[in-house]
């Protein structure tokens, strides 16, 4: 799975979770860039991403990801 494909699917997840069809994520996107991306919605985001890509994040990864780029790296390694 290439990065573009991941970003495309990831974008749909972000739009659903934050209920905002105008969202467009890039590897540089962080929680600062999206209004509702707080620690609570992070939980829902993680669950939705795991569901979308058929994989689980490790505990350390869940709390350690600094931006969408790191998320993409993990997905490309283990996602389906």
């Amino acid at each position, binding site marked *: 799975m290439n990065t573009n494909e991941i970003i495309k699917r990831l974008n749909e997840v972000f739009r*659903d979770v*934050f*209920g*905002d069809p105008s969202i467009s994520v890039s590897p540089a996107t962080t929680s600062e860039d999206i209004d509702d991306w707080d620690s609570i919605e992070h*939980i*829902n985001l993680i669950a*939705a991403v795991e569901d979308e890509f058929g994989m689980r994040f490790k505990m350390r990864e*869940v*709390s350690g990801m600094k931006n969408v780029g790191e998320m993409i790296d993990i997905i490309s390694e283990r996602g389906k």
Partner: protein
Amino acid sequence: MKELEYPFDGSSIMRRKVAVKRELLSDGTPRIKKKIAVLGGSTTNHIVSLLELFLLNFGIEPEFYQSEYNKFYEEAVFGSPELDSFAPDLIYIHTTSRNLTMLPESPAEDEQQVSQRLEEQFGIFRQVWESLSQHFSCPVIQNNFELPLLRRTGSYDGWGVTGHSAFIQRLNVMLSDHARKNASFYIHDINYLSAVCGLEKWHDAEAWYLYKYAMSTSVIPDLAYSLACVIKSIYGRNRKVIALDLDNTLWGGVIGDDGQEGIEIGPETASGQSFSEFQRYIKGYKDYGVLLTVCSKNEEENAVLGLEHPSSVLRPSDFVSIKANWEQKDKNISETAEELSLGTDSFVFIDDNPAECAIVEGQLPMVRTVSFKDVHEAMYKLSRSGCFEVTSVSADDLHRSEMYAANAKRTAQQKNFSSYGDYLLSLEMKAEICGFLPVYISRITQLTNKSNQFNLTTRRYTENEIRQAGQSDDHICLCGRLEDKFGDNGIVSVVIGKCRNTELDIELWLMSCRVLKRDMELAMLDELVRLARSKGITRINGFYYKTPKNRMVSELYGSFGFKRDELKENGDSIWHLNINDYSNKNKVIKIKEQGEQL
């Protein structure tokens, strides 16, 4: 919204919750508003988000208060100004086995020590409930406790004195006991829910360490749905009717083709057994006050034939309405709804044919439909759907079906007659009109005290006064019982007249509204006149005393042919009838002779 009905896709709802909420709030449905306080022993945010969606879909618009993280005990027992000013309509205590602080620690502990631990653990929760009920007189819903995933000692954990599973099960019994003894206190059974989801799926250590969720986020939709069912049941939002298809739903095969001897129901075959079990399961709902109806494409004759199969658990009389014809099913359901004076949002429709379910859903979106591959799937969907979630059982529930059945049959019958008189004749009414027999005294007294509408003088009597009037020579006392081919209405009318030489003053004339427009009042008048004549009376005086509720009988005596002597300013009126040339008015009710069985 179909997406929120069981069986639902929990992860999709979770992911799309913002859009789903937006859609629900803009659909124009009228909803009741309720303030719900969630006191948590772990994180509750997504539970609340999902609960909101399911409640909105059940017609309830919630406003939420959430306690500080894991402060359920402190906020309940020591109070919280925020909770006070929120003034909840309902409180949900979301605790789980993660909140148990008194679990046995050593296998050396004996029964007495463990019992002590149980008492203390239970005491902590009892303190919470008592304090809440002192501060807020509102319903309280409490989770019971889920079994642990891990059992160090295997099966022994479930029965050994210091086993954690054993401890939790004993505690759950204590919670249930408390719930049965305390109105407005309800158990949310996460012990069942965690089992039905699977403990392996339910428990999620990472969700605990990362987010302090006491269960996997993947089962949060199940938890929220199950809780929403309890809440909507408390607020009377349950479904009330199960409309059932027949062929391949209540029995295997097609009655029209296979005949009564050819359908599969009963112990002979595996499939026959499953249909029997399904019928028993459905009949159990009826026992809890759910109304059953048939909605089937069939000849009515064949439908009844199938239900009269010797092994059929459900009999024709178990249904308040049987619609077996070749009309569209949605049309039949709408008609049934009208006959029962219920909305289509009270209906659950069960049919093995998904196409029929789709048509009904398309035409009547408020009807819940259940399609299935085998009847066990239907039973399971019905069970998990929470459509008939019970939070209390009233005496009315236990008799609802009979009452509705008789009324629905009368209404249905009325349609088949062009004239109302023919309809009345078709009811084959029989009345027993007699003096105040001892067995009727308490019912007569009850009627004099609760009848307001069809009541000319609204005079209230004690049981003693009724007994005295009944035995007095100066009085003519009558009570009337009306039965028709659909059922016995019991004592429905009472008349008391006082003799003054050749005149009779009617002191009381009342009738129960359940037999309005059945000519029962004419039958009562006929009998009153007959008895009056036998006492040498020539004139009957009637009195109408106006109240805010009895306008329907202001002209009753006029309709009987009485002459009005006086109309007072306050609306009261006085009437009289000379009975020398009176001829009987009742033409539709057969009067029982003395001693004849109705």
